[in-house]
């Protein structure tokens, strides 16, 4: 297999595998959209997944080395408090991200 053929095969295999993971529930359960268990899951899974995505996206922070996660903690608190105060999603996200970029790029906690 030449270099480009190999690359194209890899891309196609990944495309199919990724689509399969996303499509499986729709393929298996398309006739049961109104099943009470699926309505129950539609109600509770998003809350669980959002909690887990927050933990996951902060999970690679190194707590044992300086700055011990301080930029992440402050940026997260800034985002949360801005959102609890004003409930303007864009503003909350910009505040946290701008602070975090400044902290990381300027070496504020180093």
């Amino acid at each position, binding site marked *: 297999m030449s270099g480009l053929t190999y690359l194209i*095969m890899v891309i196609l295999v990944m495309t199919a595998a990724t689509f399969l*993971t996303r499509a499986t529930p729709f393929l298996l359960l398309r006739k049961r959209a109104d099943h009470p268990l699926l309505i129950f899951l539609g109600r509770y899974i998003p809350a669980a*997944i959002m*909690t887990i995505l927050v933990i996951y996206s902060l999970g690679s922070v190194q707590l044992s080395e300086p700055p011990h996660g301080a930029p992440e903690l402050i940026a997260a608190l800034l985002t949360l408090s801005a959102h609890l105060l004003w409930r303007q999603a864009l503003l909350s996200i910009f505040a946290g991200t701008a602070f975090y970029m400044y902290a990381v790029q300027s070496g504020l906690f180093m």
Partner: protein
Amino acid sequence: MSIIGTALRASLPVMFGYVPLGMAFGMLFQDLGYPWYFATLMGVLVFAGAAQFMAVGLLAAHAGLLEVAVSTLALNSRHIFFGLSLISRYSCRGVKKLYLIFGLTDETYSLITGTPVPSHCRESDYYLAITALNQSYWVVGCTLGALLGRLIDLDTRGMEFALTALFLVLLIEQWNKLREPFPFLLAAVCGLGALALFKEQMLLVSIALSVLLLILRRPHLERRG
């Protein structure tokens, strides 16, 4: 505001996450020595962040196609649980529905379950706009990274925090909708436990476990609700 305008506003934080992350992928991909437009092609066809980063390693190691298939399935199998909770929401048909399913990333899922559909438009059109905008950010990022890579000297370090901040904001929105502590606490315990024990497969383990425990707890939750 038009559908596109509302979707643009809701998805803007994803742009700030996807463009620098896509660029990081594009730069790594470019180091493999393939033409830049294959990075674009991967963004268009695969559209999965973690899997594309993994692909750089697999391509460099010249991994077999079976290994590529198995590792992609393992990495993305958490998406099965996304679909489980969207079956009634994704009620449209045909190509529209296929594209919505195809484009179901972590961030697309978060926006679709966490932001309100504008009152004057059809749900499926709003979901479609969100999905397509998110993919366009990702494709632009992949392309810029592979094409310009080392040429542009823009310090984007830390910009990916936009995705963490987006998840935090949507967590609050989920709380405002549900106002029941159980699913949040359950997921937090599963998430922290899985982070400590299975770093690599953290997402899959914790999401699968949470869904299982939610189902077991269902009689109790529904009695109260």
